């Protein structure tokens, strides 16, 4: 593919197999009735296999849009994007990622099990295999025993866990999560953060995670991408090296506070606190 050749020429990557997401000089402009809106401008980003990358920034900074570009739910207007070495569209058609939305988006007429097997049905996987995989995925999010329940019988946190199980069910290596815990209370969110971290450590998936909570970003990530609005751009990328089996206790440590401070500084530098 010529596109890949071009990208490799411009920026030679170490062993391209380990690069999951490679974005070069990407921009996205929405044409609206009030004129163009520069949602993303000149974004460069590399996500390696096994990374847990958080996107943090105020609303309007394009963090969700960036995730949607990776998922091929939006198309970039300029720049090069490769997911697993192919175009986002190809990656979507390969079912290369699982996507978790801000809301659980469970289908109310399907039981939890049948919600989790929905992607497998679309991928035309046999029924036996579907049930087995749903069982495994629900176990990963500690929802085993709730297979036959309907979404309305579950709490908000459990519904969001079910939607994570649905994204895990077809075992894509890349997990894209768009503020999945944004609508949940602090205590539930802490618990789910810990669970998500365990899941990440166990499955060794690559996770891209959008949030607007600094503690959440610092706690979860191996790499924090700080973004700023108007136009949406990346202003800092912070690598952390907390142990994979960390617990919520690390939030009291100086290292944690130091990283959180740097994130906050980055947000301030991007004039995120102006208005």
């Amino acid at each position, binding site marked *: 593919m010529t596109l890949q050749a071009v990208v490799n020429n411009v920026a030679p990557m170490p062993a391209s197999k380990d690069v999951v997401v490679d974005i070069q000089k990407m921009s996205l402009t929405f044409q609206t009735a009030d004129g163009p809106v520069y949602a993303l401008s000149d974004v460069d980003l590399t996500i390696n296999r096994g990374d847990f990358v958080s996107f943090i920034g105020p609303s309007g900074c394009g963090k969700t849009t960036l995730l949607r570009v990776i*998922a091929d739910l939006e198309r970039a207007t300029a720049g090069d994007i490769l997911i697993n070495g192919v175009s986002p569209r190809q990656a979507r058609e390969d079912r290369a990622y699982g996507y978790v939305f801000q809301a659980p988006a469970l289908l109310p*007429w399907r039981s939890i099990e049948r919600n989790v097997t929905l992607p497998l049905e679309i991928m035309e996987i046999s029924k036996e295999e579907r049930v087995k995989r749903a069982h495994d995925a629900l176990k990963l999010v500690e929802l085993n025993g709730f297979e036959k329940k309907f979404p309305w019988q579950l709490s908000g946190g459990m519904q969001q866990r079910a939607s994570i199980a649905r994204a895990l069910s077809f075992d894509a290596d890349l997990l894209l999560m768009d503020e999945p815990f944004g609508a949940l209370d602090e205590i539930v969110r802490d618990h789910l953060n810990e669970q998500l971290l365990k899941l990440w450590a166990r499955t060794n998936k690559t996770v891209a995670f959008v949030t607007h909570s600094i503690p959440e970003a610092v706690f979860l990530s191996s790499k924090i991408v700080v973004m700023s609005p108007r136009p949406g751009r990346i202003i800092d990328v912070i690598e952390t090296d907390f142990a994979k089996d960390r617990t919520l206790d690390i939030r009291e440590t100086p290292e944690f506070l130091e990283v959180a401070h740097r994130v906050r500084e980055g947000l301030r530098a991007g004039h995120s606190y102006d208005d």
Partner: protein
Amino acid sequence: MTTDAATLPAARTGPGLWTRMMKGQTGPVCVMLIGLFVIWYIGAIFMNMPGQLDRYARAKQDWTVSQLVEATLNQDRPVLPAPHQVAAEMYKTIFATKITSKRSLVYHTWVTLSSTLLGFGIGTLLGILLAVGIVHVLTLEKSLMPWVISSQTIPILAIAPMIIVVLGAIGLKGLVPKAMISTYLCFFPVTIGMVKGLRSPDHIQLDLMRTYNASRWQTFFALRWPSSMPFLFASLKVAIAISLVGAIVGELPTGAQAGLGARLLAGSYYGQTVQIWAALLTAAFVAAMMVVVVGLFEKRVLERMGVRA
């Protein structure tokens, strides 16, 4: 209903019959019904009185008030028949006549019902197909939707005779032309409801299907179709009731030989008001029953879809 008794074990008696009846639907419905009958009887007395007085005058006959009232409620061809006359007529023509006889209301009801159901079936299918086309093909939305709406601005009474005549000319008589008129009326609510229903999934749900690289048909069957069920049933309830209206209207212009419409027409030709009212009430009852059946079907389907009880 028994919570009162349960929470107050010391109470000697539960709530009375009246309280219990008024808590549910039974009580209010009965009160309404009794009220209606009272108004109906009073109306019958006053509307039939002038005719009765004429008759007394011509016969130079003396009368008392009680004789007058009794007579107004038992005329052969009253302006407004009393409920018991209609009930007697309905009993006679529904239960006391062989159902194969042309005098049997069951026979006429079946004639109308069969074309109602045929028209309803075709109309529902057509309505759904149109909605599926409109939702999936932009050209169809722009070209078809205005026609769908303007089709309903033409008075059915004007177009029904033409349908009957045109279809009659190509040799279609009886059941099918009447069913066509039902179809013409009942596809409309189905189309409108289903367009709305098939578009009811959230953006987020549609995005979800996109992340799975689901085809249009997969999205249709897994997401759009189930989402549209509540809309479908709401439309079907309207559709089946007006489908019956369509069948009855379809029986009028031909001076049809059979059917509830024919009974209405014959009744008005010969001043048989009791017969008209009997056919009218039967039609209303049949329409209500069909709506109830659709409602039961809806309940079953939604229960199977796990909708909260």
